[in-house]
């Protein structure tokens, strides 16, 4: 049996195959430090697919769609495992929806979405590397331009 590198949790969510460098970024968007739940974080674990990977285990946590969308932006290779009584009952890769609503800020200061109280809307034009087009100003952003709300 494969030796566990990070201890198991009873019920909750495991975010696996995070690009190692992005592990803390993923942890920070999930607000786990505020919720007082048991969290196990591993970094620089060896992975056949990624070389080095990160893993985050959160007890009693069900991710919202918005959180999943954010993880997909930061760590596009991540997989989610839903754990019930120490067993993985569901396993799926994260994936970006066709449109991100209220997740990413439009980088164009002259965009209406930065002036009116409306949720931002960004169409996913390309998944790898991620390229987004603003529904309003139609500007395209990728890489460093993509800033989470």
């Amino acid at each position, binding site marked *: 049996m494969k030796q566990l590198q990070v201890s198991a949790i009873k019920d909750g969510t495991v975010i696996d195959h995070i690009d190692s460098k992005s592990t803390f970024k993923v942890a920070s968007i999930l607000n786990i430090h505020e919720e007082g739940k048991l969290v196990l974080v591993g970094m620089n674990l060896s992975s056949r697919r990624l070389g080095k990977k990160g893993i985050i285990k959160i007890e009693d946590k069900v991710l919202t769609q918005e959180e999943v969308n954010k993880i997909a932006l930061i760590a596009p290779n991540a997989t989610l495992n839903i754990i019930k009584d120490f067993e993985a009952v569901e396993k799926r890769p994260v994936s970006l929806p066709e449109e991100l609503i209220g997740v990413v800020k439009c980088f164009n200061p002259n965009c209406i*979405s930065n002036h009116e109280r409306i949720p931002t809307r960004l169409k996913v034009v390309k998944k790898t590397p991620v390229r987004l087009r603003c529904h309003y100003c139609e500007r395209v952003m990728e890489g460093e331009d993509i800033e989470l709300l």
Partner: protein
Amino acid sequence: MVNLKNKDIISIRDFTIEEILYILNMAADMEGHSYPELLKGKVLATLFFEPSTRTRMSFESAMKLLGGEVISFAEPGATSLVKGESLKDAIKIIEGYSDIIVLRHFLEGAPRLAADTISIPVINAGDGTNQHPTQTFLDLYTILRAKGSLEGLSVGFLGDLKYGRTVHSLAYALAHFPCQMFFVSHPSLRMPVDQLEELKERGVKYSEHDSFEEISHRLDVLYCTRIQQERFADPVEYEKVKGTYRLSKGLIEGLKVKPDFKILHPLPRVDEMDESLDETPYAVYFQQAKSGIPVRKALLAAVLGAKEL
């Protein structure tokens, strides 16, 4: 079957090739006939949060020639919007006064938000550096009139390709047909990378050039644009750049251009086109300006559902 009733005219990206051709055919019909009662009883509200007298007059004239009424606010400063009312609120109120809204705004995406908010059709008359779709339709109409077809043309773009929204939109539209494109500019004013990538993904053949002379003989059409001084931090740099691309009758006649070569320009011009060009058979930019009326008539009639082809 193309049906544009209630369609918003926000971005050239929203139009299929069939819809584009439908609008151009409708514009040709509008140019050939007058329909003085077609939009009788309909009210157009023009909302210009950024002034553009020509564009506004063109819309108002088109509406009145079709028998419709026009309302507008006197000046942006007079509305409560500037005092902090949201665009969403303002547009909902104006929806109650009119059948169709033409909106120009200094913020990019404002017309899209307006269209998402209300149910009557919204026409974008320019949003910042983003889109000005009715200009694109009249550019396409002018090329169609001058060349007889849009298919497979070799089209040059000259001037400010970086910030020129009319260039980006026209290139996007011509990619449907598909046309080969030549982008001629100073290195600091090249087409944005994402625009070029998109053209490549759509299978368009294009190339970038510093000099107009080296490709002039290959072109069917040249789309020339103004270089705006405010784009340059250094006025010396501006002086250098603007002198590089100055078209004149003498220059064109000295080059081996095709006999039916045509030059378009969205106007106003500054220095990039000498007045000596105006009298040559190459110049179609005044016809282009005149096309604004039939094209806007066609768009108003189509989205108000008053006419079908």
